[in-house]
């Protein structure tokens, strides 16, 4: 019964978004028939139209709107590409209940424009940007358009979920996924949590740490769900993390390298990003906590001998981050200042200098028990 209900819900949402696309297109056609040059209203993305909502703890989009015009030399091609995306999503994906990758879309819509030597899309970057324009213009996100982002991230822990591929439903026990763990798909809306027997979620930015923790049976011993994002978290992983936190009220702890890039990965998972500010609501996980690693950790765990000298780009990044509203907490300002002062960074693996299982047996339990987190 539950399955059926989800199916209905999904179908409904599909119909809704299809209708939205149709409305947008109908509006454009109406403009054309009136003799007006067609345009699409798109909220401006990027730093100039992004702000930090302190209450919601999210990076959100401002209300600046720009238009893409067909009859402007600079816009024309992109307008056309956005239309290609719209028709592909509506006609090929939603109407057939199929999902596709960004690359699929690229190949499906790439062709030579009749009577010219020009291709509709030169390289995938163009169609990727058109997709973002399109999803923002509809105030939706690509997963709802049946577009899949790159699946990245793995999980392991005592949780049973149900996933579906079109109408086939699979029950998956995340505690029996072997050495590799369960691969988080790019679209996670359809996933249902069936049996959840964990106290928290531990996210490591690095594959190697996940493998270490999995080998050490850390999740079994500590009754948690472990996850790796393999660098900057993919949309699927971020969305799933949010659902785990908000639907199941599980605390989320995030572990990254002790450097500005690691911290930025954390902030993206927690607050969202500037580029995808329109999706913070859906992808952000404002309650997540930063478990490590910090510059203070380097001092506390006496890792000075295994640090790396910071590069210029790291320092530049840190200086930028220091100005971001979402890094204004005094703990973070302190960390960033320490970093800028000492100009050193450390990888999570530096903990292995103590011993291989130091992270599983000492560092993480200690941190979690003491609630030694950064906001």
């Amino acid at each position, binding site marked *: 019964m539950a399955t059926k209900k989800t199916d209905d819900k999904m179908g409904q949402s599909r119909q809704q978004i299809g209708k939205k696309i*149709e409305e947008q297109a109908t509006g454009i056609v109406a403009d054309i028939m009136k*003799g007006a040059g*067609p345009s699409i209203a798109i909220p401006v*993305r990027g730093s100039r139209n992004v702000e930090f909502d302190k209450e919601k703890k999210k990076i959100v989009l401002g209300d600046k709107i*720009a238009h893409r015009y067909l009859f402007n030399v*600079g816009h*024309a091609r992109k307008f056309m590409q956005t239309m290609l995306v719209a028709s592909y999503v509506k006609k090929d994906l939603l109407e057939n209940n199929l999902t596709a990758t960004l690359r699929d879309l690229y190949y499906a819509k790439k062709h030579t424009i009749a009577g010219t030597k020009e291709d509709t899309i030169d390289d995938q970057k163009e169609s990727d940007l058109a997709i973002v324009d399109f999803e923002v213009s509809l105030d939706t996100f690509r997963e709802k358009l049946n577009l899949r982002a*790159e699946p990245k991230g793995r999980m392991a822990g005592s949780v049973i979920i149900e996933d579906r591929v079109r109408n086939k439903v699979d029950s998956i026990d995340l505690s029996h996924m072997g050495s590799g763990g369960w691969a988080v798909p790019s679209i996670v809306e359809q996933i249902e949590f069936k049996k959840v027997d964990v106290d928290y979620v531990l996210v490591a930015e690095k594959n190697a740490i996940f493998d270490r923790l999995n080998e050490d049976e850390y999740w079994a011993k500590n009754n948690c769900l472990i996850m790796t994002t393999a660098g900057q978290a993919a949309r699927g992983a971020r969305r799933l993390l949010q659902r785990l936190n908000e639907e199941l009220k599980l605390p989320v702890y995030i572990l990254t390298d002790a450097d500005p890039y690691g911290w930025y990965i954390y902030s993206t998972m927690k607050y969202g990003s500037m580029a995808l500010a329109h999706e913070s609501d859906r992808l952000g996980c404002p309650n997540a906590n930063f478990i490590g690693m910090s510059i203070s950790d380097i001092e506390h765990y006496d890792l000075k001998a295994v640090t790396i000298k910071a590069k210029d780009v790291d320092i530049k990044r840190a200086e930028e981050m220091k100005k971001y509203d979402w890094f204004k907490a005094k703990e973070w300002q302190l960390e960033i200042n320490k970093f800028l002062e000492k100009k050193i960074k450390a990888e999570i693996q530096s903990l292995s200098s103590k011993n291989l299982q130091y992270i599983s047996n000492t560092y993480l339990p200690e941190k979690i028990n003491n609630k030694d987190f950064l906001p």
Partner: protein
Amino acid sequence: MAKGKEVVVSPDDLSKEFKEYSVAEFFKRNRQMLGYTGKVRSLTTVAHEYVTNALDACEDSNVLPELLVEIQVLENGHVKLITEDNGTGIPKQNIGQALGKLLAGTKFMQRQQKRGQQGIGAAYATLFSQITTGKETHVKTSVGDGKVVECDVSIDINSNEPVLHNVKEYSAKFRGTRIEVELAEVDYNRSTYGAFEYLRRTALANPHSQITLVEPNKEITVFPRASKDIPVKPKKIQPHPLGITTSDLMDMAGISQARKISSMLQNEFSRLSAEKVKEISSMCPNIDLDRAPKNLQWSEAEKLVDAFKRIKWIAPETDALQPITTDQLRKSLKNLLEPEELRISERPPKVFRGGIPFMVEAAIAYGGKAGAVGSESKGEALRFANRVPLLFDAGNCAITEAVKTIDWARYDLKDWENMPVSIFVNFTSVYVPYTGTGKLAIAAEEEIVTEIRNALMECARGISTYIRTLKRAADQEERKKIFFKYITEVAQCLDEITGTDRKQIEEKLRKIAVEKTSILVSADEEEAEKDLAELEKAAEKEMVEDGESEE
């Protein structure tokens, strides 16, 4: 190539040499002074002498010039140049003077504005042929009285006297002059310095003439007549003292009928009164003005000319100028250049050196066949003095100086040298201040350069307007093309989503595109540019920050 500077010979050298040699001997030794340097240039110079004489001869008899110029390369490498005109013809008794005696021209005395002004040209061609090939120059001429004279002419170098051989006289229907001259140390090609270019430019400045050129490869080019209006004959006036050179004065003295130098000055010059003769006399106390003119020495003539320059004169009359006229020039340039746009200046005469009248006719032709012959989109500056093309020594010329100092960028012609542009300047004056004996360049005197600049800038303003219109049209066309390119795709997408007939959307979009491209920059377009900047900024950072990959 013969672009070298004129060899500068000081008046002292000249007078010394004149004493030692005959005029013929002098110029034989100094042929570079007359433009006989370089093989291509030498041939062009010979052609120039005959062509200018031919055009003058036609104007004298009030006929529309029909010129034939044929160039043959002979087996021995010599070049045969044949020119034929339908002008007055040369009376039998004058043939020797016209073609076999240097500094014997008749034009000078008339002080009419003429193409050739010195009595050296055609006779020197005879001499040049003689020096280089040992051949005589063959002439066939008739004044139109049914009698034709043919003979071979050469010059006795020692005495500067003409020698005529094989004189034949017969009855035939012919009028005009045909000259056949054989030359060595010359060469023919179609470069900027060749006869082809010379004739093309001559045709440009003489719309009433029809010129046919037969090249060595037998290729026939006709520069067709653009107008049947024969230029109004310039009024004959006496020379103004300011417009005279030492050799001019010597020339006058040689043929003057006056008994005294003083009476020659008073009677044969314009604005030269008895008062002025007295003034001259007081300035040159060592010259006895009561002597016969033919006894005037070169050094004395020099001093007199110098005195002329220091005396205050009443300005010469201006109605002796014979411009091409705007109408004729327009016909001519349109006829030969078929330009997309043509601007011609219309300006009144001006004076230089305190009183010598001159007039500048400038034109700029853009597009069509404008620009240098034989190369796509290459600009050219065409210089003329009294309708005679100036091909050589551009570097020393007032016209070049004017062209060089104009800020062409202001007129959208910054790169005119690589554009289909013909810049045309004709300097008209009874007295053209040439920089050398070869009549190749106009002295860059301030009044002249300024006037040429102003005339050219007047034309350039018009061309600029045209180029801007053109650019705008090209922009609009370009924009329309861009929009049209995407319309089909957009219409198809909208059809796929909404089910509205794509043909209907397409048709409507095309209509809007045409409307949109007819306005250059509207307010909403500026808005669009701002929007674009906003959207692009975001796009740049997009992928980098989110670490999305191309899966």
